[in-house]
């Protein structure tokens, strides 16, 4: 558990108080896609999240920082919840990959805490690269359910 806390951006070396909360009253996040950044759709009420499109923002911290902070804040208090996270990415750069790995670790951590976590990795069926990346991300998950979902082009 300590290790997981250290590698996650939102889990610095300090204890986190765990208190069960009602479903969050946080505002949902909807960000339209741009040429360099993906569409973000975080529905905290439904515990349904998705990242779609291409991701190579000029400043990864600026784009993902607040979003990931809010997500981590939300999931840190979850108990016995059902979380669905859809990834439907066409291209992402290394910095985004680092963010995604952090998200995967966080989601697996959430699942290990008794929540049901379903991660869907959607990719175009002829996109071998995105398929392999999905497999790579998914292979370390121990608690979350991971689905590879090829999509017909």
């Amino acid at each position, binding site marked *: 558990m300590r*290790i997981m806390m250290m590698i996650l*951006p939102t889990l610095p*070396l300090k204890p986190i108080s765990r208190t069960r909360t009602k479903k969050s009253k946080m505002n949902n996040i909807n960000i339209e896609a741009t040429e360099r950044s993906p569409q973000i759709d975080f529905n905290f009420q439904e515990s349904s999240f998705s990242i779609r499109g291409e991701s190579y923002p000029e400043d*990864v911290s600026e784009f993902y920082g607040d979003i990931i*902070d809010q997500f*981590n804040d939300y999931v840190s208090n979850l108990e016995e919840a059902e979380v669905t996270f859809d990834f439907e990415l066409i291209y992402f750069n290394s910095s985004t990959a680092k963010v995604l790995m952090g998200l995967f670790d966080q989601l697996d951590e959430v699942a290990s805490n008794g929540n049901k976590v379903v991660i869907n990795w959607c990719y175009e069926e002829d996109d071998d*690269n995105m398929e392999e990346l999905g497999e790579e991300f998914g292979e370390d998950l121990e608690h979350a359910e991971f689905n590879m979902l090829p999509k017909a082009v």
Partner: protein
Amino acid sequence: MSFDTFEAEAGVIQKAEELLRGDLTAHGCREGFEGLLGDYKKLLKVSRRIVRMSDRSEKGLISARNQIQEQQASLEKAHQELKRLSEHRLRTIVEATPIAIIISRVDTGEIIYTNAIAGPLMGVETEQLAGRKVTDFYVDPSEKKFLLDKLKNDGQVDHYELRVKKADGSILWGDVSQRYLVFNELPCVLSACNDISHLKKMNQAASRFVPAEYLSFLDKKSLVDINLGDHVTDVMTVMFSDLRSFTSISEEMTPQQNFNFVNSYLGRVSPVVRDFNGFIVKYLGDGIMAIFPECADDGVQAGIEKLNQVNIYNEERSKVGRLPIKIGIGANTGHMMVGMVGEKGRMQGDAFSDNVNLTSRLEGLTKFYNVSFIISAATRDALKDTSKYNIRYLDKVQVKGKMKALDLYEVFDSDLPGMRSLKQETLEVYQQAMEHYFSKDFTAAQSLLFKVLQKNPNDKVAWHHLMNTTRHLENGVADTWTGVNVMANK
């Protein structure tokens, strides 16, 4: 909360530093380093994964680059094929174009490309044109420089009518348009030449009906620009001339001989009109109606030269035993309107005004007075220098249909030398006789006219005045008599 992509790595370093700063033998230090080792392994795994992903991305990029290069090569090939096809199509079109296309070098004038029709147009095999100089085909080689200058100044030459010398020496008229272009990396001139010889001939034929001078006078560039009602109003000199003895001559000729005779006569006298800056408005059978827009001298000199031509013609006729011909000429100067009359389908040039009608009467009066050339006082007054001409007062006449009497003059420059000399010799006495006549001193007039006729018994004008003088002496004249000869006939 803060977000830092590498916050975990920073946390590991910070923890390691804290442990190193502390007591390495203290309780829990080992567990701390074991935790750090675990964190390091985890980070190493993430790093490896990212490197693998980068490698995969790089591989993908290389593959994409190769794919793009293949596509570029394929596109280039397609482009070349398209270009080849396009050039082939263009060449097919140019070769089939019924207008000669000639590309020549600017510096040397050497022909480096022609289409198929250029050869036949120039009268040589098309293949033999390449390498020849364009100036070989100019009737006037200086026109090449003129056209190049025009190209340089205007950037283009459009519809220049150029005389082209064919290989066999014959000449054709080409409608030539030119543009600069770079061909085979050389500065060249592209010339498009259309054979307009036939059109030129048509225009030349048309100009016989509406002469170029007439077009110019009406300020028209081409026959097609002429419209019914186009006209110019100005002070001009109009001249009528007519064959005197044509009826009696023609009676002895066949219709074909008549045509030949009239054309022979007109062929001699018509160019004279052009020589003196005039133009023939129309032919009136064997008669000619001509306008001299610039000055009265042109009209009078043309009339004199016309009569000189008739004198020469008569000499030739007498050598082959033919009767001489006589013509009468009347000229007048004043305001008149010259333009196009008729209807849309058929029109011709004409001139209108009282002055024109009067001139026709003057021409008719040459018969009455037995003289060759009568001019009005208006024409005489318009001459720059009357002393250059042989002119004498003829009569004061009221022509049929006119209320106003006119002073008329006889121009006798073209009288045969003997008659001209006698008229010159008797001119002063004749003029005095006329002065006495119009001042009703008929006795003095009669005496002076006798003197004139004594010297020149064939002076029919003097005879005419002598007859009138004698009659007035016998019958007397009214107090209102002014000497005006009222003409009852046209």
